[in-house]
């Protein structure tokens, strides 16, 4: 029920804002109010969430096409709860920014923002593949309009490029969805089993690799980030890219364990290349948005490294890093928006000296900047540490590359900070440019406060992203545990409720390819596969 509310409240709010004749300020206020209500709903979900229990929570299910086994099935896991939290907080900040900055055609604008909120929450909570696809595409429509109408000078080209790239990936994903759903007999993520088809895996991976983005499919990134309005860029970079993370985790890795293992090396290479490449390009990018955009590319590469590390350390690090990077990115883009408003440009060569006489701006930018570069002690560092410690399992070279990226991150962030705040006044900076206004502070301070709180207590997310059962199953998948049967027995003992998990794949019991376990009622638990030994059954 709560999950459905989380999806429907912003959608309903979007309708209300669109249809009724509000003034510009009223439309924005209502949108902001709805987004804050959404945050409240999420906090309620957080409070009621049992982190010790594995499996879906706050679920809701209603049949849609029964002959294809397509249903409206939504629910929350630990990690999706945190991603939804990131979404609602970031969107609230973005809507607040839109309200403060003032946008033309306000009703349409705020309606689209609310619609986007609902769509993204839907992506993170959908447990049926077609529903997931619908929400995934549903994210695209408002983004297309938001960038194309309210964007910068070259917005048309940027948004068309963005849409074409994304849709190309989505179509591949659609093919994979259809084939997978038909072969499994159901489109439900909780009920369906796994598959070892590399083509289906690639179909999904392509879509998510474009969305994240993963090098070299990032061609849409710089233009889209540069031409969007600041708050839309914040959402794009902070929230929408995490849809790819979620998809990789929930669908690509969980449903295709063997292909994920086969392609692991390639994906790790691409992720590492993206990490280094993005860092170098951020080091020399000529404008604020360019630095943030390429740093985003680098961070998504890092998160992907964590996802494909193959152990719980990497997965937890990836989830933590997703949340942290989402908040950091949102804050940075909103700050960039403020700076661009004051100086009418984002070109670093024309900026400088903005720290003088503007202590609030300097403090904010500095705080977010040092968290962005993952200074030890920050939440970003905790995430990076977990990811690299996890990927160390796959080979020491990955960790070395990651460590080098730490130094590179320091270089580009410090360059950004100095170019904006320090040294002489830039040619574009008017002397009367104001410090951060109370409205801007009202947007930025909660985001930074969340970041600081996470820095003091990263275990809040990492301890609560995956319950033991979830992680253990995912772990066994990725290692192709030789200890198949013993592991099987231990997981089977964990099954408290039927229909809780994922299905078996691979050959018989005791073999090295035991992957997941399905717990079903009744004796005929292992339909279609060889049953395990009697003494190991629960």
């Amino acid at each position: 029920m709560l999950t459905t509310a989380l999806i429907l409240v912003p959608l309903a709010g979007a309708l209300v804002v669109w249809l009724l004749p509000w003034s510009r300020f009223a439309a924005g206020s209502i949108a902001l109010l709805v987004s804050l209500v959404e945050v409240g709903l999420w906090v309620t979900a957080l409070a009621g969430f049992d982190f010790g229990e594995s499996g879906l929570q706050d679920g809701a299910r209603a049949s849609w096409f029964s002959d294809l086994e397509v249903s409206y099935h939504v629910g929350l896991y630990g990690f999706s709860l945190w991603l939804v939290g990131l979404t609602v907080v970031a969107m609230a900040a973005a809507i607040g920014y839109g309200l403060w900055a003032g946008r033309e055609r306000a009703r349409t604008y705020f309606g689209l923002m609310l619609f986007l909120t609902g769509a993204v929450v839907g992506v993170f909570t959908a447990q049926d593949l077609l529903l997931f696809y619908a929400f995934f595409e549903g994210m695209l429509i408002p983004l297309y309009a938001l960038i194309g109408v309210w964007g910068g000078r070259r917005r048309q080209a940027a948004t068309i490029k963005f849409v074409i790239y994304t849709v190309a990936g989505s179509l591949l994903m659609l093919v994979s969805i259809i084939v997978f759903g038909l072969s499994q007999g159901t489109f439900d993520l909780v009920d369906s089993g796994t598959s070892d088809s590399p083509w289906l895996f690639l179909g999904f991976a392509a879509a998510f690799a474009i969305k994240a983005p993963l090098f070299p499919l990032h061609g849409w990134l710089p233009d889209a980030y540069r031409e969007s309005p600041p708050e839309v860029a914040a959402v794009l970079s902070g929230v929408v890219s995490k849809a790819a993370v979620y998809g990789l985790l929930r669908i690509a890795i969980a449903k295709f364990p063997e292909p994920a293992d086969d392609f692991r090396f390639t994906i790790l290479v691409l992720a590492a290349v993206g990490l280094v490449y993005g860092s170098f390009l951020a080091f020399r990018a000529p404008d604020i948005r360019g630095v943030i955009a390429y740093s985003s590319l680098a961070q998504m590469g890092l998160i992907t490294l964590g996802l494909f590390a193959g152990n719980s350390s990497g997965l937890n690090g990836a989830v933590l890093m997703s949340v942290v990077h989402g908040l950091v990115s949102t804050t940075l883009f909103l700050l960039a928006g403020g700076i661009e408003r004051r100086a009418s440009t984002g070109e670093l060569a024309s900026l400088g000296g903005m720290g003088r006489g503007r202590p609030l701006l300097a403090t904010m930018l500095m705080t977010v900047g040092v968290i962005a570069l993952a200074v030890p002690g920050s939440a970003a560092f905790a995430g990076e540490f977990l990811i690299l410690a996890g990927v160390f399992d796959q080979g020491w070279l990955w960790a070395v590359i990651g460590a080098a990226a730490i130094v590179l991150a320091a270089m580009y962030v410090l360059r950004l900070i100095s170019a904006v705040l320090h040294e002489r006044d830039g040619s574009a900076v008017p002397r009367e440019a104001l410090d951060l206004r109370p409205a801007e502070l009202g947007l930025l301070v909660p985001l930074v406060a969340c970041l600081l709180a996470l820095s003091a207590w990263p275990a809040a997310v990492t301890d609560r992203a995956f319950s033991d059962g979830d992680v253990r199953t995912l772990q066994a998948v990725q290692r192709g545990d030789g200890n198949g049967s013993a592991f099987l027995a231990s997981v089977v003992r964990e099954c408290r409720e039927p229909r809780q998990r994922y299905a078996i794949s691979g050959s018989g019991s005791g073999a090295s390819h035991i992957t997941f376990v399905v717990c079903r009622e009744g004796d005929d638990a292992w339909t279609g596969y060889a049953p395990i030994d009697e003494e190991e059954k629960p």
Partner: protein
Amino acid sequence: MSIAAWICLLAPLGGALAITLLGELVPRRIAGLVATGSVAVAFAAAVVLFVTVLGRDGEERQELTTAWNWLSVGDLDVGLSLLVDPLSIMMALIVAGVGSLIVAYSIGYMAADDEERRFFAYMALFVFSMLLLVLAGNFLILLAGWGLVGLSSYLLIGFHHERPSAIAAAKKAFIMNAVGDATMALAFFLLVYETGTLDFVTAFERVDGLSSTVVNLVALGLLGGAVAKSAQIPLHTWLPDAMEGPTPVSALIHAATMVTAGVYLIVRAHPLFEAAPSVQDLAAGLGAVTIVVAGLIALVQTDIKRVIAYSTMSQIGYMFLAAGIGAYANGMFHLMTHAFFKALLFLAAGVVIHALVGEQDMRKMGGLRRLMPRTWIAMLIGGLALVGLPPLSGFFSKDSILASALATGDTYGYVLFAAGLFGALLTGIYTFRMLFIVFTGEPSGFVREHLHTEHGEGPRWMTAPVAVLAALAVVGGAVQIAGIWHPLADFLDSIVAADRESLALVEPTVTQDWVTSILAVGAGLLGIGVAWLIYGARRVAAPRMVALRNPLERKLYFDELYQTVFYYPAVGIARGWTRFVEGPLIGGSISGVAGATRGLGRGVGQAQTGFLRTYALAIAAGLAVLAMVFVSVR
């Protein structure tokens, strides 16, 4: 005890937060008082811890307190924990004690600055970070403190951010420290992979089970971080540039505390280093090299703060040397006395700089002895302590290290001993070169014009801490007199007791102690004499030695080397990739797709001829084909 530990850690953080949040609401002077007060509270808490620990013995002297689980994944559990034991208490006392004196000094020094509040917030943040580092209960929290210390250093070096040179220096310091952070992180990954824990106590227990390659790599990674943080060769180039920061910053961060963090790390992780003897020897060797090289470069410096900076580098070399041969207590002893007299030197130099409205070039100074007599005395005390003349503190600490080197008995130890002696000679020369240039002779024109001493040599806030530090520099050596009484070594014994057999570190014999002291003092006096001849009495001209001078003045070309090897290639790679990879990737990919689509459309469009009869023919032909298909299928 744990409450005191948390108060010690959090008081400065509270001070920093208070100053930041209250902002312009409080007068500037209050900000300084808040900062000083918070650090003083930390010192008081440290004293409480010290007294408590004194009353206990052995195992009871160590207490681990955890606030909450900071990070836990699978089997790895990292808590936000503090370890209170003699070593950390000693460091906390030094950090908070010297720190409070220096923050108090800053109230006077920074009084004219517009952004005073920011300065005090940063200083309090720094003290918090340093305390986090020394009180940390596991490697990850230590690394957190490590990084935050680097951050505070960046903020403070770049405090005058309108100056490009200050900003460049701040960035350089941070990035070199980040390299150290990266090597430490790699060491931790390996440690987690092999032992599954980052707790000090547990990790050290499991060291025995590790292969020698692993231990060597871990120790090497830790050494990399230590070398970067303590500005030892080869990661030392950031320290002289860091003098761009205000003088109290140089005193606190770059003399007394931050740069000693590397030594602390080696002592804290000594079980690891002892299991990797080659790395420990490397540490001692790097220390020895730094002693000599830094001392040589200090001979040709013209900026008063840079002389002291290179001197710091050199003295930390002594501490690394001590840690490298297993003489941990002696190394920590020198750390403590060095904090006293080096901070004293910096703060006294600050008084001079302050009185000369910011001038730091020694060549413009001269004859200040009569004009600023108290400052002269303070710097003289600091200089004598630095050179290591009895009965000042530096004598006891430095000589204990040299005696330990001699006592190791092997060739390597003798080489280290020789380097240390040569370093003592150099110390005498460069220290008193500085003192003679600045204080003796006739007041220069610049001095006569700019010196303002109507209100005494400096504000009370500045002169009082200097006096306290001078007193400490004189008597600080009393805690450990070689061979006679060693309460400090006893205090630290429970944690730093090296495995004496494996290191073959024996206590120096009385003969060795005397020989060392005589040689060291002699070297120091010789150095002073040389300096007197050239710069004091001006009887001998400074030797030209161009061939030697130029490389030294260019700091042995390390800066140029790093620029060429790291910075320019980084810029080049970034530019190259932007042009040759990103350009085609962004522009090319989409234009390619668009072009292909258009071409395909054009190709298919050729079927639309516009001729009616073509379409009719197509219909007829299609019909015929269908008919044939139906007929044949039937």
